[in-house]
């Protein structure tokens, strides 16, 4: 679709159109206000910042919901708030909301109860939203950097903890390095098409077919793919993931494994499907390989992990691989699958991390799989929650993870990528082993601990409740959510 000629239903505004960035505006204002408030309150009251940011997220969520079905473009076509971006914005807000619910308890335990974390999470969310609605390489880059800079800080947030320092610094160095590749790719695309507008790139290519053989354009596409692959942690650009996820404060790991990954996919999809449809044969080939590598490396390496955070880091790599399967397919079913999967992944993964926050002890102790021995019996309800999350991650019905995977894979099959789907199924069968290992410890080993330090704060309980609902409801009645996802695809 040529986006230069606006369809009649897009509120055309060449210049300033705040309606197109309303959620971003609301959230940024709240975040900045919180930064100010933070100065005036003492450390016992930091939790209020959390509550305020939750309110802010809810307000933003209403703005997102109200924008549904009414695309808004603005700022000289550099942002477009369509259903696609709104669906992703919803996903980001959900992940931020769930993360904030589990943050307070963690911060108090680790004695790093600094209020800045809440505005930082909100800023990161703003960055993600910009990435999802950016229709100009500049906006996308800007969003990506707003997100990344906040995440560097969040990863190294516990500044007294050496592991957290290391995670932040590693993430920073490698993230900045990958930004170089992404930018170089953008520069080459700009050079070969003369524009940075996503839609204009597509129309330039369709009018000047010979540019397709220009190595500059191809290299630009590939380098952008490299940059985005870093963000979504696709192999072989995934190697930072386990270290950073292990070292970062647990709630931030939960956040990083969900929101930024979804944002990376949003921008990745937008750029490749809207700007470079003419090169689909090329990039789907590349994505095929990346998907297979990512799934396999993630799952196989996860088999031998003992630290549960690190194990879930590898699992999140594998999940990026599954989502890439749907992306490779590039058809309606596959793309809707990507949207659906990212949202349900937010629920299941943050839910699992909520349990990890709960079981962990001061100084990031008690994070080994073996520390969960007998957990399921000492705390049947919590054990049940964890089992539901693990089943969903493993893709076992009736959890949302199964429906999502089924969708992604059937998208691949409809697009003719049968082998890709088979490799995906094989991988997901192998992944059951390491998820199951946690269950085996939870239910089939004698407890070594009394788990008497566990204290479920109301907000954490709410997080668990929402996550369980978010895993089970779309798993059993996925209709509504799938409808939304289908209305949000870029076709």
């Amino acid at each position, binding site marked *: 679709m040529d986006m230069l000629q606006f369809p009649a239903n897009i509120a055309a505004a060449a210049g300033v159109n705040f309606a197109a960035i309303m959620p971003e505006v609301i959230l940024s204002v709240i975040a900045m206000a919180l930064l100010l408030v933070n100065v005036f309150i003492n450390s016992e009251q930091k939790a209020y910042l959390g509550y305020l940011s939750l309110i802010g997220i809810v307000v933003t969520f209403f703005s997102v919901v109200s924008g549904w079905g009414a695309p808004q473009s603005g700022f000289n076509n550099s942002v477009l708030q369509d259903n696609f971006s709104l669906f992703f914005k919803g996903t980001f807000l959900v992940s931020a909301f769930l993360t904030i619910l589990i943050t307070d308890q963690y911060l108090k335990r680790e004695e790093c109860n600094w209020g800045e974390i809440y505005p930082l999470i909100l800023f990161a969310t703003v960055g993600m939203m910009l990435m999802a609605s950016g229709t100009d390489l500049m906006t996308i880059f800007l969003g990506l950097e707003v997100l990344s800079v906040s995440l560097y800080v969040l990863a190294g947030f516990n500044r007294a903890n050496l592991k957290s320092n290391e995670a932040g610094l590693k993430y920073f160095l490698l993230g900045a390095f990958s930004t170089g590749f992404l930018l170089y790719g953008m520069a080459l695309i700009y050079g070969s098409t003369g524009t940075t507008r996503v839609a204009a790139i597509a129309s330039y290519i369709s009018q000047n077919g010979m540019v397709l053989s220009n190595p500059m354009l191809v290299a630009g596409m*590939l380098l952008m793919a490299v940059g985005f692959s870093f963000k979504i942690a696709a192999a072989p650009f995934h190697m930072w993931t386990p270290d950073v996820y292990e070292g970062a404060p647990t709630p931030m790991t939960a956040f990083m494994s969900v929101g930024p990954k979804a944002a990376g996919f949003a921008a990745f999809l937008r750029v490749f499907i809207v700007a470079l449809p003419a090169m689909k044969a090329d990039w789907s080939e590349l994505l095929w390989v990346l998907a297979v590598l990512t799934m396999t490396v993630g799952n*196989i390496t996860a088999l031998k992990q003992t630290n549960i955070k690190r194990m879930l880091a590898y699992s999140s790599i594998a999940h990026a691989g599954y989502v890439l399967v749907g992306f490779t397919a590039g058809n309606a079913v596959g793309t809707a699958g990507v949207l659906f999967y990212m949202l349900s992944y937010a629920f299941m993964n943050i839910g699992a991390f909520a349990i990890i926050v709960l079981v962990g002890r001061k100084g990031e102790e008690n994070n080994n799989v073996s520390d969960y021995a007998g957990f399921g019996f000492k705390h049947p309800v919590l054990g049940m929650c964890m089992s539901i999350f693990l089943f969903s991650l493993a893709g076992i019905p009736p959890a949302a993870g199964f429906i999502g995977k089924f969708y992604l894979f*059937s998208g691949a*099959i*409809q697009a003719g990528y049968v082998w890709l789907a088979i490799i995906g199924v094989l991988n997901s069968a192998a992944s*059951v082993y390491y998820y199951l290992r946690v269950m085996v410890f939870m239910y089939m080993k004698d407890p070594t601990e009394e788990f008497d330090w566990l204290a479920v704060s109301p907000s954490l309980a709410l997080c668990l409740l929402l996550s369980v609902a978010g895993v089970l409801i779309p798993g059993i009645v996925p209709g509504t959510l799938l409808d939304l996802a289908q209305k949000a695809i870029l076709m």
Partner: protein
Amino acid sequence: MFENVWLIPLFPLIGFLINGFFGKKIKNEAVIGGIGTLMIFLSFLVSCGVLMQLIGLPAEQRVFEKVVFPWIHCGNFKADMAFLIDPLSAVMIMVVTGVGSLIHLYSIGYMHGEEGFYRFFAYLNLFCMSMLLLVLGSNMLVMFIGWEGVGLCSYLLIGYYFEKKSAGDAAKKAFVMNRVGDFGFLIGLFTLYWWFGSNHNIWTINFVEIKAASHLLPYGGVVTIATLCFFLGATGKSAQLPLYTWLPDAMEGPTPVSALIHAATMVTAGVYMIGRMSFVFIKSPETMMVVAVVGACTAIFAATIGTAQNDIKRVLAYSTVSQLGFMFLAMGVGAFGAGIFHLMTHAFFKACLFLGSGSVIHAMHHALHHGHLHDDAQDMRNMGGLKKYMPITFLTFLVSTIAIAGIPGFSGFFSKDEILWQAFANPYHGGLNIVLWGIGCIAAMFTAFYMFRLVFMTFFGECRINPKVKDHLHESPLVITIPLMVLGFLAVVGGYIGMPKLMGMLPNYFEHWLDPVFELANEYGKEYAHVGHHTHALEWGLMGLSVVIAVIGITIAFTMYMANNKLPEKFTSTFPALHRAVYNKWYMDELYDFLFVNPCKGFGNLLWKGFDVVVVDGIVNGVGKIFMGLSAGIRGLQTGYTHNYALGMTLGAVVIVALYIFR
């Protein structure tokens, strides 16, 4: 009633929710067990209603699809949460809810006083719900959900006594092996879906739609691939070669679980699945052959192992594997109706056998507990002579044993004989049919042998239990014996609805009943194989032969485990010359030992120790080891050094760009 079919899986779900969430608070065993049993019994009543309505319809109208709610709709893909009622699913729901109700009732007595009583009933209800989803699902996805659900429940229930390490390991093994099968199922599903979609633009996974479009499927080729994948799923779930080893280990679970899940229902899911998709399977002669050969081999293989076991439940476990082999043999030779028939009769008599063994173990355990003895309550060498202590258990057990051994007049005879006859007479595999039939006959002989060995060792002869505690042996309470009696009764009469036409007393209702389901498959089969004509005399002859075979098996068992008791002493004094011969039982024992027992025992042991433990487990563990090695290798790349990661990224980028620019 059709409109209310969704109630059938709903009741057990309610039971699961109540017992799962509030069971710990309720505490009262009668209430918990009552709720669990009542829920499944209500399902049984609804199932009866459905069956009645189905019977009332003319044969060709006996298909009904009930969409409970639209589930996944995306583009041209559609999967509803929908249930399919047809003669096949009607049989299955009757078996699941009927046998299920009895086993729930039994469990109230058997699990009395166990810690986690509520947990047991919650899981059991959840299992029933999943199994009902599996058999009622009108598309492969609903079926798959049930398929996974039963696997999960089986895992939870095998590991019920989680304090025992072996229970945990067995549960894990079952789950992993089932997953191997599940991935086969999914790939088969995807293959069919892709083939219909890309070639005929029919994107469907609905059984009715696939059936309607099945004439488009080619013979062999892609159908072979898809069906082999499905069959892999079936071997995992139904414990066939080479994925059967989890089933004997699964006996770590409580006995009612073994009866319900690992004998009567879940393990037959593979057979049901092939029946459900008979019109696809029959289109691949290669797959049919594989199914038949795997079934026959499993039947004889497991039967031989059964002869060398001393644990009462393990004998029954191997027997189950062997009987499942018979069912697959039936499916493989195109005798779908006979296979489902055997599934049903097997559910009756094997559930009865398992529950009977549970009753025995219960009594033994109780007695040994009284005497503070730590003898193995499941070892048949500690039993013997129990018939006078437990007359009801003994009678029902004996009846079921006769049924499984294939003595005319009992249910097992009709179904097993039908399978053997069709293995002989059906034309699909040419000369191989005779071989399959032969293997089946030998397996049937072993079955009669080991089952009667079991009965003789357990109920006859002198009581080998420690005399101190003999007086504490007594019959189990009514809540346990009532299900036994009902199942025992069914084990006798259950076969009469499927009497062979030949006997002529009653028409073969059962096959007629299933005709609408399988007639399409039979039609497809005729495309490449022509039914030969066999005389009635031949059929009578083979039937007689199978009876003889069963009798031989029983006689061997009798000679070995009964006849060598007290008789010799009398002879010793009067006829010293003869004595030596009689003492040595005419040297028949030695002859038997030499001819049958030792080779079999040796073979059984060899298979068990050698093949089972070394080869099968070796392969399964070996694959695991390879992946673990790979895991360690890839982990090694993750050095923790930032510049190595940067190097990895750079290399990745350079390789990708170079490949594209210079190709």
